[in-house]
């Protein structure tokens, strides 16, 4: 079990526009890095390298629609997670990124208006199961889609690998 819980608290490290592609999140030249922790060194490296240094553990990335479009590279989700990002909140996600994030234990929450109602530095509290975002800095409640219980289960397990590991280890242990 990781310490990820459905209630998260952190600051907004960046508010980004629509169609943030995975090449911008994690450049193709580093795809031969297969050590997940090391991917963090190249987060947003070409376009906005300063974001990485702004992220404190548990902070959030907020974006407009279609976050994570393009390449299926899982390193994009890994780089966010291992940079300390606690969750990505976007108006919508490209489907492969969404699955990659959940499978790595990185919460990805859909909120149509978060990119409008949050500014960099805002303090947020997020209830993944209820689909609620409280912007504590602005005293606003921002609607989001509740995260699917299966996704919450994977996040609680720390991702698909620990989840499968537990599933296949269970018969031997029992």
């Amino acid at each position: 079990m990781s310490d990820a819980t459905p209630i998260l608290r952190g600051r907004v490290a960046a508010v980004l526009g629509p169609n943030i592609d995975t090449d911008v999140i994690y450049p193709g030249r580093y795809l031969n890095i297969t050590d997940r922790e090391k991917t963090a060194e190249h987060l947003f490296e070409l376009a906005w390298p300063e974001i990485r240094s702004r992220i404190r553990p548990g902070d959030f990335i907020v974006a407009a629609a279609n976050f994570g479009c393009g390449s299926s590279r899982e390193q994009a989700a890994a780089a966010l997670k291992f940079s300390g990002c606690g969750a990505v909140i976007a108006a919508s996600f490209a489907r492969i990124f969404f699955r990659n994030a959940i499978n790595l234990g990185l919460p990805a929450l859909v909120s149509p208006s978060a990119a409008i109602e949050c500014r960099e530095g805002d303090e947020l509290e997020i209830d993944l199961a209820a689909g609620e975002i409280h912007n504590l800095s602005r005293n606003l409640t921002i609607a989001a889609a509740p995260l699917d219980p299966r996704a919450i289960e994977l996040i609680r397990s720390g991702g698909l690998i620990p989840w499968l590991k537990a599933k296949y280890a269970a018969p031997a242990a029992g």
Partner: protein
Amino acid sequence: MTLAEKILARASGRSRVAPDEIVVAQVDLAMSHENADLVRKAFLEIGVPRVWDPEKIVIIFDHRIPAESEKTAATHKAVREFVRQQGIRHFYDVGRGGICHQVLAENGHVQPGMVVVGTDSHTTTHGAFGAFATGIGATEMAGVWVEGKLWFKVPSTIRIEVEGEFAPWVSAKDLILWIIGKVGAAGADYRAVEFDGSAVRRMTAASRMVLCNLSMEMGAKVAFTPVMEIAPDAGAKYERAIHVNLDYDIPEPQVACPHSVDNVKPVSALADVPVHQAVLGSCTNGRLEDLEVAACILSGRRVHPQTRLIIIPASQRVCLDAMRLGYLETLIEAGAIVNPPGCGPCVGVHQGILAAGEVCISSTNRNFIGRMGSKDSFVYLASPAVVAASAVAGRIIHPEFVMAKENAHV
């Protein structure tokens, strides 16, 4: 039911499925390229000793071939050893295959009605052969290697009917770029796309692959062109229908301008964009018909002195055919360089990286910031014909201007 619904119903053992239902489907084919190394690591972490079915796994090296660095050489080596240990027969090493999507197609791995997953977003390509084919991440693929199944949300379907005739020098690439320009980069997010209509039914398999391949760039989960073996039901329900008439809608070639694939303009709207590099290749447009049109345009002409032209056949077989038919000879005589069959510079790793300020016209599939090199370079996406013509002219141009006799000097 639509094609996506039919295939998912069959693969999940149900009589019917409807959009937004979650189903667990058996996977018929699981493809990976170099990121098989990421999959391998995740698989070993899970701790199950054997893959679910070595016959259903295909591994093809294409992103970094031959190995461009010691690090890549080490990952290639690790995957080769894993493939041997697990008895995975369908492994295409350097010099044995080419770009994964071309190799799967050429070797008959994909059949109509299959569920195909690949650790590559352009896995949608295989809808050209009637498969529900979609991209997944490496960790998820490790789960497939263990269990041979995966959960899917049943997608709603967008139907795209294409009628009319292609104008001269207009091709499947221009059609799909035009569609992406209309619906936007997120316009088909999570959806299936069914292409049909007389114009699609007249297309070659290679051109149908272009439509399904680039559907990914409007977010599609899967895309299909018609096959004989499986068809949507007459009463299938569609979320939306789009009708395209080639004669009226797409009279000239289309170009996706920096830095998004939905930033599409007709070629005539681009006045005097100088081109430093032209790239003809990729899983989108590196097939024999693409090399043929380039050879036709470059025959008896020269690549512009300020431009370099990089040709990348999509596979060993395409390369061999293009050689036997004289296309490569024509292209090399015109001043092109021929890269080995693989992804080449499309993913920004090697074999044609762009410097700051450089402009590339490319038959590939993405023009994101820094996709092919410097964050300050500019990639324009176009058809093979426009790429070849622009290489001759040294600027982005409609092929008709290069081919016209009175302009033979350009």
